[in-house]
């Protein structure tokens, strides 16, 4: 009897090790991607392939994520995936059917708020990374002011958070100094952000406004 138990244990341990080995090999050089979806019963597709798990392992690269749920507008997004990526998918409740579903399912409503909050936090983190210099604004002195504002001519994608730097300076010298400050005090390459010189008498500009 004792012999049999030991045999069974050895077989089980071997199978478990084999399982761990297969899992490790199948996930080798793949990125862990966590999906946060509301409503929870939405159908999720990655590059057109249906997914049932909330954690998937994908090779780093760009993928199209789609979440759909009866009565809700499909949520489609193209995202670059790297290690520990979080993808938030929230089909919009734009119909009577969708609203009714949420009213009748308070748990789903709560999930909607939680996932929505996560999306807002993610947007804030992204913008803090991209525009880390915002905390150093405004730069003010007697010759110029540099502050942030909405983009004027920049091309932004729908839903993308973007800003421009507004420079107020009355003289050509003030604008040159403002540009130097943007480089030295904010530590950014002026090419990478839209800079809008509000008082610049640019006689060429009328052609596009």
């Amino acid at each position, binding site marked *: 009897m*004792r*012999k049999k138990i*030991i*045999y069974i244990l*050895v077989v089980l*341990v*071997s199978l478990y*090790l084999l399982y761990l*080995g297969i899992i*490790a090999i199948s996930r*080798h*050089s793949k*990125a862990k991607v966590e999906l946060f979806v509301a409503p929870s019963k939405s159908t999720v597709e990655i590059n057109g392939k249906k997914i049932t798990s909330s954690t998937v392992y994908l090779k*780093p690269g760009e993928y199209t994520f789609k979440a759909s749920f009866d009565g809700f507008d499909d949520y489609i997004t193209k995202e670059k995936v*790297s*290690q520990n990526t979080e993808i938030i998918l929230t089909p919009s409740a734009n119909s009577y059917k969708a609203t009714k579903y949420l009213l009748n399912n308070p748990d789903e409503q709560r999930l909607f708020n939680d996932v929505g909050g996560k999306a807002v936090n993610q947007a804030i983190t992204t913008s803090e990374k991209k525009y880390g210099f915002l905390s150093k604004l405004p730069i003010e002195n007697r010759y110029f002011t540099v502050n942030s504002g909405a*983009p004027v*001519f*920049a*091309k*932004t994608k729908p839903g993308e958070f*973007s800003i*421009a730097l507004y420079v107020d300076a009355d*003289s*050509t010298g003030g*604008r040159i100094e403002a*540009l130097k400050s943007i480089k030295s005090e904010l530590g950014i*390459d*002026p*090419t*990478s*952000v*839209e*800079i809008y*010189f509000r008082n*610049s*008498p*640019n*006689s*060429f*500009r009328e*052609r*596009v406004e």
Partner: protein
Amino acid sequence: MNRRRFIIIFSCLLFIVIVYSVISAYLNSFQYLVVSSNTQFSLKIYPAEHDADTIKKSQTSPVKSLDKPGKYRLKKGLYFYTYKSPNKEFKPVDGNFDLQAKKYFINIKDFAYTDQKLSDLLVTEQSDINKAIMNKYSQQMNSYEIKNSKLYHKGDWYGATLYSKDRENLDDLKIILKKENNAWVVATNPPDIVLSSPVYTNIPFDILSQVNNN
């Protein structure tokens, strides 16, 4: 099952786990470098190290010399690379990458001409470029003159400073033109103090940056 047999089986299992861990650690110490190209090239990859704010080669002989696109396995780490075209009119390109959890992609596309070749080309193109600017901004150009002219990439991009004649009231402005269908066209309308990448998404960043800093 006697004690001896149990120890043998247990040792075998332990051996498998250790071998698996060693193989797994070895495989994990490599990562892929993917090289794609639509042209002839020779690429040399060197181990690199940080030197103050820059990254430089840590040895003079390359760890890999490549002349074909493909997927190559390298030990994880910091690398410096340089690639060039067999055609001497094209400028070699340098770069570096830290190969870790993700594959690194080097896309060798069209080479840019050397500075000398671009300067030679500018001599023949300058009058057409000036005409294109004057035709578009005939009135405004009375207050400006064209300075810091330079061609970029394969001579199909041009950047310059419109230097203000009224230093007190008018700013110096940057302008970029692109050669399309054998004619020069203004690509940054209007010329501005700084040409920013979020506004001109169709113009390569390196050109915008060089023109702004010229």
